């Protein structure tokens, strides 16, 4: 039975969430190629260097916030319905969708205002050239902050729908283990609830009233600390859905099954515990924060490597098992016997491979002292284009080739474009990201329209500055082509008529080591949430207390236009 026929209401919701995600991906990718060509100096005819930052804000917000959140909402909606075998409570789920969409429109309109002359709307200039970190005291239009808050609130409501589905399922299936996919979704959402408190307080208590003029001053260090309380766990909010795909779907695509259900649960619990008390590693170079707190965050960050290293093992082992089920043998030659021509499989594998590279550059970012060499250089976006920009984004695109047919009942169209697409993305990202990392070592900063200065010139450390620029431009262009190829496949598939029988289905094979081997304590959400909160109190209690001890709004800064 095709998913769309079993769960028509849930399928419609997933389609709507994916549509918004894909639209955001298209615009975000267009902004991305404009930036890549502009900052490398290859072509600067699209926008002025002052408007570059509007494009950069749009790229960050649309891709890192809108594309991710909507795609994750769609994926989670499917995963919960699929593993609990029931429709989602659709009234709650749809209100979540509309709240998030309203927030998206508000934020997008405020950003676009910046390139159409910042008209005055409701007494404030309509612009939001503040990038997706929106550090105060740079001020955006209040609608931008309200929009960002609504996207977060909408995601909270979406989480309620998943929990409601679990409670309904529980009353019908007392004593049963939570199915793995639902377990992963709910653990991710618990982590998300805990971590978004930071940005919610930042935006609702400080930025919105301050941008409206209700309060005069805010403390820039306090607000950015609240941002980074959220800013690292958000990374895991992007990654854990990719892990859900790699753990539960990828082994099946390889022809096998998951290696171990218990270890998958352990990994997700570890993320719930450790994702949040690490935010100070984004603030290693911030004044006003004693180094002891930075050291605690560094230690937690390093232990956060553990679940990802375990994932690398489990995923590779599961895929190898799949290859051997298909008759492969040898130490490494089993790699040849995998369905590299199936874009859902190849996309996930290439995404995982790039995530390994991103993991290693992340270890350097996490290294409290070596970080001084690369902090805020273009190394950093080089790193996160491997993680959110590939581990998440390429996995999302790849699994869409598998999932969209099931939520529409339509066969995937343009298969040859789809087959090629993950490889185009991989090559584009390999070019762009390696050059960005090396340029970062040379000290070239991130977030700038023109990385050249009157006072001095950069010298390449490994390779020349000119060669790196060229690789970034070509890589960025290929990534744009890759996104366009994906959108062509999706558009053609979604617009096609339904017909024929699908070659894919949502049945997930039982793991080699099933949930019976998982200790029951792993499903004890109350316990894990309590420990997670305790770790946060240890990591954040004293520094936040000292920041607010001198007054919530001091040392204060008034709003400053950009």
């Amino acid at each position: 039975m095709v998913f769309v026929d079993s769960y028509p209401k849930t399928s419609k919701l997933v389609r709507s969430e994916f549509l918004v995600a894909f639209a955001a991906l298209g615009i975000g990718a267009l902004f991305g190629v404009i930036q890549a060509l502009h900052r490398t100096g290859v072509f600067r005819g699209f926008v002025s260097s002052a408007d570059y930052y509007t494009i950069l804000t749009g790229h960050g917000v649309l891709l890192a916030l809108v594309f991710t959140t909507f795609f994750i909402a769609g994926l989670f909606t499917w995963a919960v319905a699929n593993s609990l075998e029931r429709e989602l409570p659709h009234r709650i789920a749809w209100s979540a969708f509309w709240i998030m969409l309203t927030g998206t429109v508000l934020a997008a309109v405020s950003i676009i205002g910046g390139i159409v002359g910042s008209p005055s709307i409701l007494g404030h200039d309509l612009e939001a050239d503040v990038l997706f970190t929106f550090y105060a005291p740079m001020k955006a239009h209040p609608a931008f902050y309200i929009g960002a808050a609504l996207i977060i609130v909408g995601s909270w409501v979406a989480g309620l729908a998943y929990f409601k589905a679990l409670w309904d399922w529980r009353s019908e299936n007392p004593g049963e283990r939570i199915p793995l996919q639902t377990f992963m979704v709910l653990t991710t959402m618990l982590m998300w609830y805990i971590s978004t408190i930071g940005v919610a307080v930042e935006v609702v208590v400080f930025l919105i009233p301050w941008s409206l003029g209700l309060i005069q001053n805010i403390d820039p260090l306090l607000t950015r600390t609240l941002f980074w309380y959220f800013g690292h766990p958000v990374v895991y909010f992007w990654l854990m859905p990719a892990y859900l795909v790699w753990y539960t779907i990828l082994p099946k695509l390889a022809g096998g099954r998951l290696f171990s259900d218990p270890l998958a649960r352990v990994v997700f619990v570890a993320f719930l515990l450790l994702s949040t008390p690490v935010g100070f590693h984004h603030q290693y170079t911030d004044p006003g924060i004693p180094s002891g707190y930075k050291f605690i965050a560094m230690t937690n960050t390093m232990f956060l490597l553990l679940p990802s290293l375990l994932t690398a093992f489990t995923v590779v082992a599961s895929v190898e098992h799949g290859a051997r089920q298909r008759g492969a043998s040898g130490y490494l030659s089993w790699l040849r016997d995998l369905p590299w021509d199936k874009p859902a499989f190849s996309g996930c594998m290439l995404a995982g491979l790039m995530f390994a590279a991103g993991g290693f550059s992340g270890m350097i970012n996490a290294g409290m002292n070596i970080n001084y060499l690369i902090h805020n250089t273009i190394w950093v976006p080089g790193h996160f284009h491997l993680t959110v920009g590939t581990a998440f984004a390429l996995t999302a695109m790849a699994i869409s080739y598998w999932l969209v047919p099931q939520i529409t009942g339509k066969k995937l169209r343009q298969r040859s474009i789809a087959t090629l697409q993950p490889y185009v993305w991989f090559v584009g990202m390999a070019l762009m990201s390696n050059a960005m990392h090396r340029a970062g070592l040379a000290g070239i900063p991130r977030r700038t329209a023109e990385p050249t200065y009157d006072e001095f010139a950069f010298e390449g450390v490994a390779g020349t500055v000119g060669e790196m620029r060229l690789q970034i431009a070509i890589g960025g262009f290929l990534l744009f082509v890759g996104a366009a190829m994906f959108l062509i496949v999706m558009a053609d598939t979604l617009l096609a008529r339904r017909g024929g029988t699908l070659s894919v289905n949502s049945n997930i094979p039982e793991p080699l080591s099933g949930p019976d081997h998982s200790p029951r304590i792993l499903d004890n959400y109350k316990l894990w949430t309590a420990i997670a909160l305790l770790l946060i109190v240890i990591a954040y209690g004293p520094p936040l207390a000292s920041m607010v001890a001198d007054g919530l709004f001091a040392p204060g800064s008034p709003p400053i236009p950009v």
Partner: protein
Amino acid sequence: MQVHRFEKVWLGAAILLIVGFIATIAYGSVGVGVGMVDDSGGQISAQAVQNGNTGTPFDDPGVVREGEDQYTVYVVARQFQFVPGSGDTPIRVPAGANVTFKVTSADVTHGFSVVETNINTMVIPGQVSEVSARFNEPGTYGLVCHEYCGAAHHTMGGSVEVVPPEEYDMQQQEIEQPEDDAQAQEEADQ
């Protein structure tokens, strides 16, 4: 709970790697003495920095000689320049001396990064960033604002000129004075 033998080995290796990372960083801080940017610089009113009435050397930023081989460089970062540092007012310090940079912002969040060195700090309104360094090699070092600070952020750079100690002359260090003031001073001297 069953854990496969290979997975146990992998888990052990992963924990070893993590503990190794933490140990090298701890050694870097305690053994080698790589200092962290922390709260040692204290707080300051960003609006007072903007108005030039903090009652601190930030009102007249520049290089201050604190003692034999000991210099403090006060820098104000503002949209879109370092004072001193940008344009034709490079920060001049002698090679081999202990130099402490104290940097603060008059408006938004900036960055202060000396290219290809460990000198790299955020500059946050209301806080003073303090970084100590010693330049062993004379030469010109690039100075970059590495945090987006507004529409002309990309123009916000500067330089640090490290000169051999014997050529370093404090009399040349009037860089914090605006140019026309310096000219007036010269004329007055004549």
